[in-house]
Protein backbone atom coordinates (compact mmCIF):
# COMPACT_ATOMS: atom_id res chain seq x y z
CA UNK A 1 0.00 0.00 0.00
CA UNK A 2 1.29 3.45 -0.86
CA UNK A 3 1.05 6.13 1.79
CA UNK A 4 1.58 9.87 1.64
CA UNK A 5 2.56 11.70 4.80
CA UNK A 6 2.30 15.48 5.04
CA UNK A 7 4.29 17.10 7.83
CA UNK A 8 3.42 20.72 8.53
CA UNK A 9 4.31 23.24 11.21
CA UNK A 10 1.72 23.64 13.94
CA UNK A 11 -0.43 26.74 14.04
CA UNK A 12 1.36 29.46 15.96
CA UNK A 13 4.86 28.18 15.16
CA UNK A 14 6.72 30.83 13.19
CA UNK A 15 7.81 29.75 9.72
CA UNK A 16 10.54 32.09 8.45
CA UNK A 17 11.12 29.82 5.44
CA UNK A 18 7.47 30.08 4.40
CA UNK A 19 7.69 33.82 4.82
CA UNK A 20 10.80 34.01 2.62
CA UNK A 21 9.05 31.92 -0.06
CA UNK A 22 6.06 34.30 0.08
CA UNK A 23 8.35 37.31 -0.30
CA UNK A 24 10.15 35.68 -3.24
CA UNK A 25 6.84 35.01 -4.98
CA UNK A 26 5.81 38.64 -4.47
CA UNK A 27 9.12 39.88 -5.85
CA UNK A 28 8.50 37.70 -8.92
CA UNK A 29 5.33 39.68 -9.49
CA UNK A 30 2.73 37.19 -8.21
CA UNK A 31 -0.01 39.20 -6.55
CA UNK A 32 -2.59 38.22 -3.97
CA UNK A 33 -0.25 35.99 -1.96
CA UNK A 34 -1.41 35.49 1.61
CA UNK A 35 0.41 33.60 4.31
CA UNK A 36 2.80 30.89 3.02
CA UNK A 37 3.60 27.86 5.18
CA UNK A 38 6.04 25.20 4.03
CA UNK A 39 6.27 21.58 5.12
CA UNK A 40 7.43 18.12 4.08
CA UNK A 41 5.86 15.48 1.89
CA UNK A 42 6.96 11.86 2.33
CA UNK A 43 5.75 9.05 0.09
CA UNK A 44 6.31 5.49 1.23
CA UNK A 45 5.28 1.91 0.52
CA UNK A 46 4.07 -0.17 3.44
CA UNK A 47 3.61 -3.96 3.29
CA UNK A 48 0.15 -3.86 4.83
CA UNK A 49 -3.21 -4.50 3.17
CA UNK A 50 -5.47 -3.44 6.04
CA UNK A 51 -5.91 0.36 5.99
CA UNK A 52 -6.55 0.63 9.73
CA UNK A 53 -3.38 -1.27 10.58
CA UNK A 54 -1.39 0.70 7.97
CA UNK A 55 -2.65 3.93 9.47
CA UNK A 56 -1.69 2.81 12.96
CA UNK A 57 1.80 1.80 11.83
CA UNK A 58 2.28 5.09 9.96
CA UNK A 59 1.08 7.02 13.00
CA UNK A 60 3.83 5.39 15.06
CA UNK A 61 6.39 6.23 12.36
CA UNK A 62 5.29 9.87 12.47
CA UNK A 63 5.44 10.03 16.26
CA UNK A 64 8.87 8.38 16.42
CA UNK A 65 10.68 9.87 13.43
CA UNK A 66 8.85 11.51 10.54
CA UNK A 67 7.51 14.46 12.53
CA UNK A 68 8.78 16.34 15.57
CA UNK A 69 5.51 16.72 17.42
CA UNK A 70 6.84 19.61 19.50
CA UNK A 71 6.44 21.82 16.43
CA UNK A 72 4.88 19.70 13.69
CA UNK A 73 1.53 18.11 12.82
CA UNK A 74 1.18 15.24 10.37
CA UNK A 75 -1.52 13.92 8.07
CA UNK A 76 -1.57 10.43 6.59
CA UNK A 77 -3.22 9.66 3.21
CA UNK A 78 -3.51 6.09 1.92
CA UNK A 79 -3.93 4.90 -1.67
CA UNK A 80 -6.53 2.15 -1.72
Amino acid at each position, binding site marked *: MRARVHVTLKQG*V*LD*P*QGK*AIGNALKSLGFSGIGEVRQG*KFIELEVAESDPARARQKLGEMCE*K*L*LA*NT*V*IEDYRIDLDH
Partner: protein
Amino acid sequence: MKSAVIVFPGSNCDRDMQVALARITGVAPVMVWHRDVDFPKVDLIAVPGGFSYGDYLRSGAMAANSPVMAEVKKRAAAGVAVLGVCNGFQILTEAGLLPGVLMRNASLRFICRDVYLRVENARAPFSARYKDGQTIRIPIAHADGNFFTDGETLRRIEGEGQVAFRYCDADGAVTAAANPNGSLNNIAGIRNRAGNVLGMMPHPERLIEPLLTGSDGRPMFEGLAEALA
Protein backbone atom coordinates in the same frame (compact mmCIF):
# COMPACT_ATOMS: atom_id res chain seq x y z
CA MET B 1 37.44 11.49 34.77
CA LYS B 2 36.77 9.07 31.94
CA SER B 3 34.90 10.38 28.93
CA ALA B 4 33.59 9.27 25.55
CA VAL B 5 32.90 11.25 22.38
CA ILE B 6 30.19 9.81 20.13
CA VAL B 7 31.07 10.04 16.43
CA PHE B 8 28.35 9.93 13.78
CA PRO B 9 28.77 10.02 10.02
CA GLY B 10 28.90 13.78 9.45
CA SER B 11 30.18 14.78 12.91
CA ASN B 12 32.87 17.42 12.47
CA CYS B 13 33.58 18.81 15.95
CA ASP B 14 34.49 15.43 17.45
CA ARG B 15 38.23 16.06 17.20
CA ASP B 16 37.96 19.50 18.85
CA MET B 17 36.01 17.88 21.68
CA GLN B 18 38.62 15.12 21.91
CA VAL B 19 41.47 17.65 22.22
CA ALA B 20 39.62 19.77 24.79
CA LEU B 21 38.80 16.75 26.98
CA ALA B 22 42.29 15.23 26.68
CA ARG B 23 44.14 18.48 27.46
CA ILE B 24 41.96 19.71 30.28
CA THR B 25 40.99 16.48 32.04
CA GLY B 26 44.34 14.82 31.38
CA VAL B 27 42.70 11.62 30.09
CA ALA B 28 42.07 11.06 26.38
CA PRO B 29 38.39 10.31 25.70
CA VAL B 30 37.23 7.09 24.06
CA MET B 31 36.04 7.86 20.53
CA VAL B 32 32.85 5.85 19.99
CA TRP B 33 31.64 5.20 16.45
CA HIS B 34 27.85 5.30 16.23
CA ARG B 35 27.59 1.54 15.63
CA ASP B 36 29.56 0.68 18.80
CA VAL B 37 26.78 0.34 21.32
CA ASP B 38 29.05 -1.57 23.67
CA PHE B 39 31.49 1.14 24.76
CA PRO B 40 33.40 1.32 28.07
CA LYS B 41 31.92 2.75 31.25
CA VAL B 42 32.63 6.50 31.40
CA ASP B 43 31.74 9.48 33.61
CA LEU B 44 30.90 11.84 30.74
CA ILE B 45 29.47 11.26 27.27
CA ALA B 46 29.98 14.12 24.80
CA VAL B 47 27.78 14.37 21.71
CA PRO B 48 29.72 16.71 19.41
CA GLY B 49 28.74 19.19 16.72
CA GLY B 50 28.55 18.62 13.00
CA PHE B 51 26.00 17.54 10.44
CA SER B 52 25.18 14.00 11.50
CA TYR B 53 23.55 12.07 8.65
CA GLY B 54 23.65 15.23 6.53
CA ASP B 55 20.87 16.80 8.64
CA TYR B 56 18.43 14.58 6.70
CA LEU B 57 14.78 15.00 7.70
CA ARG B 58 15.62 17.35 10.62
CA SER B 59 18.92 18.24 12.30
CA GLY B 60 19.68 15.45 14.75
CA ALA B 61 16.64 13.31 13.90
CA MET B 62 18.56 10.41 12.35
CA ALA B 63 21.32 10.35 14.97
CA ALA B 64 18.73 10.43 17.77
CA ASN B 65 17.39 7.11 16.51
CA SER B 66 20.77 5.45 15.93
CA PRO B 67 21.68 2.38 18.03
CA VAL B 68 24.33 4.16 20.11
CA MET B 69 21.81 6.74 21.31
CA ALA B 70 19.65 4.03 22.89
CA GLU B 71 22.69 3.22 25.04
CA VAL B 72 23.35 6.93 25.74
CA LYS B 73 19.72 7.31 26.88
CA LYS B 74 20.08 4.32 29.18
CA ARG B 75 23.25 5.73 30.77
CA ALA B 76 21.76 9.24 31.05
CA ALA B 77 18.81 7.74 32.94
CA ALA B 78 21.33 6.08 35.28
CA GLY B 79 22.87 9.49 36.01
CA VAL B 80 25.90 9.60 33.67
CA ALA B 81 26.71 13.17 32.58
CA VAL B 82 25.90 13.90 28.93
CA LEU B 83 27.05 17.06 27.12
CA GLY B 84 25.60 17.92 23.71
CA VAL B 85 27.12 20.79 21.74
CA CYS B 86 25.49 22.29 18.62
CA ASN B 87 24.39 19.28 16.55
CA GLY B 88 24.80 17.35 19.81
CA PHE B 89 22.17 19.62 21.42
CA GLN B 90 19.86 19.02 18.44
CA ILE B 91 20.40 15.26 18.82
CA LEU B 92 19.62 15.34 22.56
CA THR B 93 16.33 17.19 21.99
CA GLU B 94 15.36 14.83 19.17
CA ALA B 95 16.21 11.89 21.43
CA GLY B 96 13.93 13.28 24.15
CA LEU B 97 16.79 13.72 26.63
CA LEU B 98 16.15 17.48 26.65
CA PRO B 99 12.92 19.41 26.08
CA GLY B 100 12.20 21.63 23.08
CA VAL B 101 13.54 21.74 19.56
CA LEU B 102 16.15 23.73 17.60
CA MET B 103 14.44 25.29 14.59
CA ARG B 104 15.91 27.11 11.59
CA ASN B 105 17.50 30.44 12.61
CA ALA B 106 14.99 33.29 12.35
CA SER B 107 17.30 34.98 9.81
CA LEU B 108 17.45 31.73 7.77
CA ARG B 109 21.24 32.21 7.67
CA PHE B 110 24.06 30.05 8.92
CA ILE B 111 25.70 32.12 11.65
CA CYS B 112 29.37 31.65 12.51
CA ARG B 113 30.76 34.14 15.02
CA ASP B 114 31.53 34.71 18.68
CA VAL B 115 28.57 35.52 20.93
CA TYR B 116 28.29 36.52 24.56
CA LEU B 117 26.49 34.27 27.00
CA ARG B 118 25.15 34.90 30.47
CA VAL B 119 25.69 31.97 32.79
CA GLU B 120 22.43 31.05 34.51
CA ASN B 121 21.96 28.74 37.48
CA ALA B 122 25.68 27.88 37.64
CA ARG B 123 26.06 24.43 39.11
CA ALA B 124 27.91 21.13 38.90
CA PRO B 125 28.74 19.17 36.93
CA PHE B 126 28.79 21.53 33.91
CA SER B 127 29.02 25.10 35.10
CA ALA B 128 30.16 25.22 38.73
CA ARG B 129 33.44 26.86 37.65
CA TYR B 130 31.50 29.83 36.28
CA LYS B 131 29.75 32.43 38.43
CA ASP B 132 26.03 32.99 38.29
CA GLY B 133 25.37 35.91 35.94
CA GLN B 134 28.91 35.87 34.55
CA THR B 135 29.32 36.94 30.90
CA ILE B 136 31.46 34.67 28.74
CA ARG B 137 32.42 34.73 25.05
CA ILE B 138 31.95 31.50 23.06
CA PRO B 139 31.58 30.93 19.30
CA ILE B 140 28.45 29.68 17.56
CA ALA B 141 28.30 28.03 14.12
CA HIS B 142 24.83 26.85 13.16
CA ALA B 143 21.80 27.24 10.91
CA ASP B 144 19.34 25.51 13.26
CA GLY B 145 19.79 27.04 16.71
CA ASN B 146 16.44 28.71 17.25
CA PHE B 147 15.26 27.18 20.53
CA PHE B 148 11.51 26.66 20.65
CA THR B 149 9.06 24.86 22.88
CA ASP B 150 5.44 25.17 23.95
CA GLY B 151 4.53 27.76 26.59
CA GLU B 152 3.95 25.28 29.37
CA THR B 153 7.32 23.56 28.87
CA LEU B 154 9.05 26.94 28.69
CA ARG B 155 7.52 27.97 32.00
CA ARG B 156 8.63 24.67 33.51
CA ILE B 157 12.26 24.86 32.36
CA GLU B 158 12.48 28.49 33.47
CA GLY B 159 10.77 27.75 36.78
CA GLU B 160 13.01 24.81 37.59
CA GLY B 161 16.22 26.63 36.73
CA GLN B 162 17.02 24.43 33.75
CA VAL B 163 18.32 27.31 31.62
CA ALA B 164 22.13 27.20 31.70
CA PHE B 165 23.13 29.91 29.20
CA ARG B 166 21.41 32.88 27.55
CA TYR B 167 22.58 35.01 24.64
CA CYS B 168 23.45 38.49 25.88
CA ASP B 169 25.48 41.54 24.87
CA ALA B 170 29.06 42.25 25.98
CA ASP B 171 27.73 43.83 29.17
CA GLY B 172 25.61 40.84 30.07
CA ALA B 173 22.26 42.37 29.11
CA VAL B 174 19.84 39.82 27.65
CA THR B 175 18.32 41.79 24.75
CA ALA B 176 16.55 41.00 21.48
CA ALA B 177 19.51 42.52 19.62
CA ALA B 178 21.88 40.05 21.31
CA ASN B 179 19.75 37.08 20.24
CA PRO B 180 21.46 35.66 17.14
CA ASN B 181 18.87 33.12 16.05
CA GLY B 182 15.43 33.90 17.47
CA SER B 183 15.61 31.51 20.45
CA LEU B 184 12.80 31.86 23.01
CA ASN B 185 13.97 33.87 26.03
CA ASN B 186 17.46 34.06 24.40
CA ILE B 187 18.07 30.45 25.48
CA ALA B 188 21.46 29.12 24.32
CA GLY B 189 21.71 26.06 26.56
CA ILE B 190 19.52 24.00 28.90
CA ARG B 191 19.78 21.11 31.32
CA ASN B 192 17.41 18.26 31.98
CA ARG B 193 15.49 18.20 35.27
CA ALA B 194 18.03 15.98 37.02
CA GLY B 195 20.87 18.25 35.87
CA ASN B 196 23.11 15.53 34.41
CA VAL B 197 22.31 16.30 30.73
CA LEU B 198 23.23 19.65 29.17
CA GLY B 199 22.74 20.83 25.60
CA MET B 200 24.06 24.10 24.18
CA MET B 201 24.42 25.62 20.72
CA PRO B 202 27.70 27.54 21.39
CA HIS B 203 31.00 25.64 21.24
CA PRO B 204 32.96 25.74 24.54
CA GLU B 205 35.48 23.23 23.12
CA ARG B 206 36.59 25.83 20.55
CA LEU B 207 37.86 28.37 23.09
CA ILE B 208 40.07 26.53 25.56
CA GLU B 209 43.34 28.46 25.38
CA PRO B 210 44.57 31.96 24.52
CA LEU B 211 46.11 30.72 21.27
CA LEU B 212 42.54 30.15 20.08
CA THR B 213 41.77 33.81 20.99
CA GLY B 214 40.10 32.94 24.28
CA SER B 215 39.63 30.38 27.01
CA ASP B 216 36.07 30.99 28.25
CA GLY B 217 35.17 27.40 27.34
CA ARG B 218 37.84 25.97 29.61
CA PRO B 219 36.02 26.26 32.98
CA MET B 220 33.31 23.93 31.72
CA PHE B 221 35.81 21.11 31.20
CA GLU B 222 37.70 21.93 34.40
CA GLY B 223 34.41 21.82 36.29
CA LEU B 224 33.50 18.49 34.73
CA ALA B 225 36.90 17.04 35.63
CA GLU B 226 36.45 18.23 39.20
CA ALA B 227 32.85 17.07 39.60
CA LEU B 228 33.32 13.70 37.94
CA ALA B 229 36.77 12.84 39.27
